[in-house]
């Protein structure tokens, strides 16, 4: 028996120590800040770094268990296999419940350490409180890990072979999707901790708020990337050609995104004008609470979802209790302390930028509430014995369109209006020609679209309006004498242009998508619009841990061969699970998409072919939005020291 054998026990020990350190980090600095005891407050920073070191050690040991194929660990044996390629052994660490929670804890420790490192400009009591609140969250998650979902649990005697990683997760998109998503979820713990610290302090300081803004922007950027990756992965991996299903698990990640988007805007208003102080705190609490709720929904298995994984109800109960404590506690604190937070707000006129930001927040939070209601309604109905129901995607799609239409219509006005003062004439004058141009483009799209006229027209109209309006702002800003374009403005411009690009993708693919599902024999051709797909049969190939039926499909456009696609049907050796691997010819103007169904006997196969116009624009738009968040965070104003801003 080599000493290496004991590594998992060291990992276990590291987790327990991390829990202790997190407890200290939660208790001492909060107490110190309340009583004004400097040595207790000083515990916060070292504790944050130590916690990161311990959780990182545990994570590294679990990764080692996967790479070295230690099947004496129950978690490794359940989610890995000797045939699993090495890359996927690393990513299998977060392929199931225990490991993904450990990743959650690691990312929380990373954010905490980053806050400890980059908070030198803040007064010590604020730092102590922020790190203390993050410590409380860490205690909850580490206790959850250790007591209900221990990744280092032994399997004795050791399994001879592992059960394999769920084949759906053996994919490059899956490598980065969860870390990005968690960076977003957990990143919202920073504005949350700041909000709690402000409530404890009893006031909102513009300088601290300025300090939190880049964190919110970065977290929101990562969440945007995570959601976009998930959508892209579902598009090519599930074989249905859809990019968003309004599935409970997707909704779970979308709700904090909407709350986060609202938070970005209200934080800007509060920092610059002192308005909506209490509301900003409430949104910060909401964004993180919704992140926790998302974790609960995904990890408890209470909802029927295409993403649902087998899960344990007792774990759900633990998260639910934790959720109750965090949300209930912070709302109670808000109710007790918030009323005096709005004291220094300046009044504003009806057509000022404040009003537009208020509308933005109202629409985004209503959309968030709408998604929350649709997602939780089945749970509610079940609890009230109203039957087992599910809420269909048409509900979400219709409501979302209704709520986002005014948001899109008002968006270009936002940057062009003034703070506080009423001045509609100037933005109206600037935007009128572009509104006309957007309307003409929309009408042209309506007349030219071969199908789905309304969706196409609305998509083009909305995209042109937002795009032109945003560029008009950029132009007027660049023309202004002596004014410079700050990173904050650049970030905003990028994110708003991202919305325009996204609108093109989302609405045009809905309107112009063409799809056929049919039985084909080798040599047969399927016509779809200007494209034709020639099915050239199926051959068997071997992968590292699967056997595949690999189809060959020639894509012809106007009679010429454009490309050859190889959709696959893979059967994984370990579990015998069958997976569809679609063949996609990507393009900026549209994708040709082929998925192989099952053999139908007599040499024919079921085949699903799609033409997906502008589908890439969906993810390109999301990338621009995320980039906007990151660029905004680099604005020099946020890095100004205490002296400069005073």
């Amino acid at each position: 028996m080599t000493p290496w054998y004991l590594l998992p026990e060291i990992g276990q020990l590291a987790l327990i120590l991390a829990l202790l350190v997190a407890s200290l980090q939660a208790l001492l600095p909060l107490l110190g800040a309340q009583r004004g005891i400097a040595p207790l407050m000083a515990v916060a920073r070292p504790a944050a770094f130590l916690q990161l070191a311990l959780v990182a050690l545990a994570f590294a040991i679990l990764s080692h268990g996967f790479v070295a194929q230690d099947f004496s660990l129950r978690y490794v044996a359940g989610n890995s296999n000797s045939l699993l390629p090495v890359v996927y052994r690393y990513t299998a660490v977060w392929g199931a419940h225990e490991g993904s929670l450990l990743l959650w804890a690691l990312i929380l420790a990373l954010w905490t350490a980053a806050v400890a490192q980059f908070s030198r400009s803040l007064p010590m009591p604020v730092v102590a409180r922020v790190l203390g609140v993050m410590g409380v969250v860490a205690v909850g998650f580490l206790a959850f890990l250790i007591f209900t979902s221990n990744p280092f649990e032994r399997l004795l005697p050791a399994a001879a072979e592992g059960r394999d990683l769920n084949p759906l997760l053996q994919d490059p998109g899956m490598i980065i999707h969860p870390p990005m998503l968690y960076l977003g979820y957990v990143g919202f713990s920073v504005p949350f901790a700041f909000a709690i610290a402000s409530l404890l302090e009893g006031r909102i300081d513009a300088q601290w708020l300025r300090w939190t803004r880049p964190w919110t922007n970065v977290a929101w950027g990562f969440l945007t990337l995570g959601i976009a990756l998930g959508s892209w992965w579902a598009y090519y991996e599930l074989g249905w050609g859809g990019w968003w299903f309004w599935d409970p698990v997707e909704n779970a990640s979308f709700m904090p995104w909407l709350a986060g988007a609202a938070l970005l805007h209200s934080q800007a208003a509060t920092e610059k004008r002192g308005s909506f102080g209490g509301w900003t705190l409430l949104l910060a609490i909401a964004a993180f609470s919704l992140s926790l709720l998302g974790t609960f929904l995904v990890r408890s298995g209470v909802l029927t979802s295409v993403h649902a994984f087998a899960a344990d109800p007792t774990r759900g109960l633990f998260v639910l209790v934790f959720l109750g404590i965090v949300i209930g506690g912070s709302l109670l604190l808000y109710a007790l302390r918030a009323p005096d937070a709005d004291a220094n707000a300046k009044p504003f006129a009806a057509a000022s930028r404040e009003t537009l930001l208020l509308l933005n927040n109202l629409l985004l939070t209503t959309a968030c509430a709408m998604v929350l209601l649709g997602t939780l309604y089945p749970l509610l109905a079940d609890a009230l014995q109203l039957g087992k129901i599910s809420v269909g995607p048409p509900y979400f799609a219709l409501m979302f369109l209704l709520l986002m239409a005014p948001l899109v219509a008002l968006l270009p006005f936002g940057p062009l209006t003034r703070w506080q003062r009423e001045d509609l004439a100037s933005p109206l004058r600037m935007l009128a020609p572009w509104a006309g141009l957007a309307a003409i483009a929309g009408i042209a799209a309506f007349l030219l679209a071969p199908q789905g006229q309304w969706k196409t027209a609305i998509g083009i109209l909305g995209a042109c309006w937002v795009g032109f309006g945003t560029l008009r702002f950029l132009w007027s800003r660049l023309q202004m004498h002596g004014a410079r374009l700050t990173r904050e403005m650049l970030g905003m411009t990028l994110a708003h242009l991202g919305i325009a690009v996204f609108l093109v993708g989302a609405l045009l693919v809905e309107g112009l998508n063409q799809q056929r599902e049919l039985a084909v024999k080798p040599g047969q051709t399927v016509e779809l619009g200007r494209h034709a797909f020639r099915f050239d049969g199926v051959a068997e190939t071997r992968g590292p841990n699967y056997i595949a039926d690999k189809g060959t499909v020639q894509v012809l456009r106007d009679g010429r061969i454009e490309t050859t696609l190889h959709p696959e049907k893979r059967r994984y050796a370990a579990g015998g699970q069958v997976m569809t691997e679609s063949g996609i010819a990507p393009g900026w103007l549209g994708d040709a998409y082929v998925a192989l169904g099952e053999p139908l006997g007599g040499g024919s196969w079921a085949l699903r072919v799609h033409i997906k116009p502008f589908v890439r624009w969906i993810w390109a738009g999301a990338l621009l939005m995320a980039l906007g968040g990151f660029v905004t965070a680099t604005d020099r104003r946020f890095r100004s020291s205490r002296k400069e801003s005073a």
Partner: protein
Amino acid sequence: MNPTRKRRLWQVAAVAAAAAIATTLIAMALQRNVAYLYTPNEVLSGKAGANVSSGQARFRLGGMVAAGSFKRAPGSMEAHFAVDDGDATLPVVYTGILPDLFREKQAVVATGRMRGGVFVAENVLAKHDETYMPKEVADKMGIAHRKHDVQAPAAEGAN
């Protein structure tokens, strides 16, 4: 009334009106888009209601794919199978590609309508996890199984 109070009153009124409209719209849209889950027994015994058995209401059918029931004519996209809940069996027809995890003796949830004694499915739900059984199906199957004193199918197992 001073201007600040007046402004605040307007703001509150606007928010309340917007919230009321939003709630009404949401409730209406929600009512129109919910689909109930029923087992074959509930459909056949009429417990699910006349709208379901007559084919008027769109609903979700949950249960197990009956052993030996899956049939597909060679070269055809039309699949026939039966869904079983331990008490009753309902024939299902579905035209299209079935999800990868579709198999006999596995849990299935299909959305569609009744048409002349046959359930015509518009879509058949896939699962990411082969050992997973939707909680709502497990609950309903559990009721059927308790009645017959059979061990309920495990709703859990991957971890």
